[in-house]
């Protein structure tokens, strides 16, 4: 029990100072039937080496993307994270610090969150951003709830090509809060017309760009239609690196932008923890959920930072709070902001270009395979291919050959027969030409 500093002698003298005879006296408020004197039926403590062995054995049972050529995307992306990122976030003064409630001794956290907010606002083309949320999907649901507050309306229109998890999370909240959700079926061709679903009850339209099938869309017309009807346009971005290559949602008229920030600085980690980005226009600031850092001065007149506008939050407004969220993804936001700072303008745009080039090359390779067609005309680093047979078993067969060949649409829409043959394929700067050749060759074999 190496994490516990008290010795038996310490415990005895401390009990004496308190004026009780035993630990049991400190638990006397617990009803007798719930007191346990013996440890519960679980293993006893283990040394560091034993724990390493046990967890290492579990890790060894998995096929990780570091070992297998991987083309998985659909909301989580493998990128190379510079070594400095992980080194810096593991500095104890960052890693083991808490919410910056005492600004005089947390200027480090506050300053990086202020930088993070600035970076997110710049990337998305919006005016203000918060200090991060749980992940892109939960941020999406929060955006819809915010649009309901801003417009005092209660119908959200979701694109059929919004990541199904984002849509499911939003529907969960809609069910309990009693707002309506309208969503056309998934459209892999990228031809859906959402503007026709906007009416006087519509609080917002939520559209993903590039969408879950990879299509890049010009959202200006949709933004105009929304604004004409008094609704907000919410844009979700699942691959934040795309913002280095394509027009930001803010430039196309978005009112709220939510994004998954995992792609910068954060590992895939089997789905979490990730970092939700949330940005909006200044006029909606006081309706924005989540934590905010603001600039101010100290009593000596020096610039400094504090948590601000907390009157919107649960610890002051309680049941009238803007949302029940009381934390942020601090450490993941730190990884994000360090990675983006290392990249800078030049590096970020080059990273985006590398991703796009990799995806273009892969699409060309796969298009030559018999029976395979690429459905997505314009894309960033992910596109959809149609296979001559169901994609689920194909991906399993590829995995047996040591290749993680993409996400079958059936994984995201298990009940949609029409999407059964579709495969979502992503390529990033981590994919070599050899990886792509290996996928093409294996796919050819499996489809033969």
């Amino acid at each position: 029990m190496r994490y516990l500093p008290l010795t038996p002698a310490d415990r005895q003298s401390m009990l004496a100072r308190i004026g009780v005879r035993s630990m049991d006296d400190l638990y006397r408020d617990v009803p007798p039937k719930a007191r346990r004197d013996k440890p519960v039926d679980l293993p006893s403590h283990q040394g560091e080496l034993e724990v390493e062995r046990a967890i290492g054995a579990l890790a060894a049972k998995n096929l990780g993307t570091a070992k297998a050529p991987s083309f998985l995307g659909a909301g989580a992306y493998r990128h190379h994270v510079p070594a400095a990122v992980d080194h810096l976030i593991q500095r104890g003064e960052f890693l083991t610090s808490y919410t910056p409630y005492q600004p005089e001794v947390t200027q480090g956290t506050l300053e990086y969150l202020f930088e993070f907010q600035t970076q997110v606002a710049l990337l998305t083309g919006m005016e203000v951003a918060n200090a991060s949320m749980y992940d892109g999907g939960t941020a999406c649901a929060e955006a819809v709830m915010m649009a309901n507050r801003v417009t005092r309306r209660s119908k959200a229109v979701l694109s059929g090509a919004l990541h199904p998890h984002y849509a499911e999370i939003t529907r969960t909240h809609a069910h309990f809060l009693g707002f309506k959700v309208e969503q056309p079926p998934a459209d892999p061709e990228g031809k859906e017309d959402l503007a026709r679903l906007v009416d006087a009850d519509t609080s917002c339209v939520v559209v993903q760009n590039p969408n879950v099938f990879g299509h890049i869309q010009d959202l200006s017309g949709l933004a105009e239609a929304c604004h004409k009807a008094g609704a907000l346009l919410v844009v979700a971005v699942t691959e934040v690196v795309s913002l280095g290559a394509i027009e930001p949602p803010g430039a196309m008229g978005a009112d709220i932008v939510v994004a998954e920030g995992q792609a910068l600085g954060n590992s895939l980690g089997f789905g979490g923890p990730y970092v939700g980005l949330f940005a909006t226009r200044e006029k909606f600031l006081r309706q924005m959920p989540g934590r905010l850092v603001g600039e101010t001065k100290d009593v000596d007149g020096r610039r400094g930072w504090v948590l601000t506008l907390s009157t919107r939050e649960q610890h002051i407004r309680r049941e009238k709070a803007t949302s029940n969220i009381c934390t942020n993804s601090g450490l993941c936001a730190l990884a994000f902001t360090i990675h983006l700072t290392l990249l800078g303008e030049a590096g970020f745009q080059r990273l985006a270009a590398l991703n796009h080039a990799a995806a273009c090359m892969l699409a060309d390779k796969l298009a030559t395979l018999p029976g395979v067609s690429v459905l997505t005309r314009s894309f960033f680093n992910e596109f959809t291919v149609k296979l001559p047979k169901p994609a689920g078993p194909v991906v399993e067969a590829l995995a047996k050959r040591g290749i993680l060949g993409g996400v079958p649409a059936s994984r995201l829409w298990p009940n949609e027969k029409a999407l059964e043959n579709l495969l979502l394929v992503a390529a990033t700067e981590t994919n070599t030409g050899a990886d792509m050749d290996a996928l093409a060759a294996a796919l050819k074999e499996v489809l033969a």
Partner: protein
Amino acid sequence: MNVDPVTGTYSGNRGLQVEEPLIFEQGEEGRCGVDLPEPAKVASRLGNLARRKPVGLPGLSEPQVVRHYTRLSQKNYAIDTGLYPLGSCTMKHNPRLNEKMVRLQGLADLHPLQPVSTVQGALELIDQLAHWLKTLTGMPAVAMSPGAGAHGELCGIMAIRAALEHRGDARKRILVPESAHGTNPATAAACGYEVDPIPANAKGRVDLEAFRAKLGPDVAGIMITNPNTCGLFEPDIVEIAEAIHGAGGFFYCDGANFNAIVGRVRPGDLGIDCMHINLHKTFSTPHGGGGPGAGPVVLSEALAPFAPVPWVVHGAKGFDLVEQDPKKQAFGRLKGFHGQMGMFVRALAYMMSHGSDGLKQVAEDAVLNANYILASLKDDMSPAFPGTCMHEALFDDHFLKDTGVTTLDFAKALIDEGYHPMTMYFPLVVHGALLVEPTETESKDSLDRFIEVLRSLARRAKSGDAAYFEAAPKLTPRRRLDETAAARKPVLRWVPGSNTAKAAE
């Protein structure tokens, strides 16, 4: 260069305390901290939507970036640098083994949508953690996906509402004690419920009679934190559970303070229906400036079928993930993918390191340390309630009466002594509250030093030296910051030309 009026130095620096400008104030166009290859020439398929304007990011080299963030880190208090007695936040030692485990290849590099045949070890890990959580709480089921404590609260209340809807019971009210975390009422409201407060009694516990008077056929449930936010165990908890069940409602237990009783009390034995567990508080995980966290929710048999997807199940062919409930009873999905795997790995590593024997000792030492502080300071500061406490020692501001020193001033003076202040002004039911949570990872020596400093400060306050407290802190990178100005005219991002700091020379 002009002399800085505060420090008397030209740079504004004071020795190792260095002024660090924003990244936006030190970048240079074209500079880059990573070497990336030249992209291959391809015909763009961005569909005429290529970015037209630069993002506006600064350019820094790797050494500049490393220095910037290292310097920022040095402006932070952290559990690695000292006692962090924030009550209700639980800042305990963060074992580095956990960090090593979560970064293992085969865990860190797993994609959430890989074929389940390729992630059997990861699913087994989640299943093992679930087993520990169910065993420690004495509950039959657990929903793993919530991303934080407050998210777990939401999950629990949604499960309650889904169960009530399933039986066609449209109840409207959730009872929440006044002493609850602010997230409790916010959560009930975010789930479409009316919040009905229950007052605390003079002993800092739920007023049992007031609670009984509120019961009725429209009460969906009650949310109680146990041990509560006053750092006290609710002795009437079994009666409360029986009464709420008798009225047809459910009992949500806020498990934020499970670290006080883990291994020693199984909440399931108290009659609760669901409880979230802050993995980061009870089982340690880095807080990294406030997050991320993880908030799995243990559930009774009655609520288990309504748990949100995904579920990890074990069948003949190994582990599987259920991402759509075939019976359509799951109340939906609460988070992208399968939850905070990174926290799961850390929590399991921590549990295995302590074992069931060590976890019991964790709870006991946390409670012992808090009571040691309470007993040692009872004559110099004013405990909010008589008797012993659980893992948090709660003081009110009686000891500062007529001194001119506020709770805030007192806390700020502690900063100059090299300590992060305790939680202030919470819980709301106590005037000028100071909530101290030392945790089990502080040694007796460390506690003795802390006690001595608090005692000395309390005596200094009583001696009439209010001006000293009002001026504190003096020795920090920044002194008291103007929060009113920050909120009145919010500046939430850097804009070009806004530099008011001294630029790095």
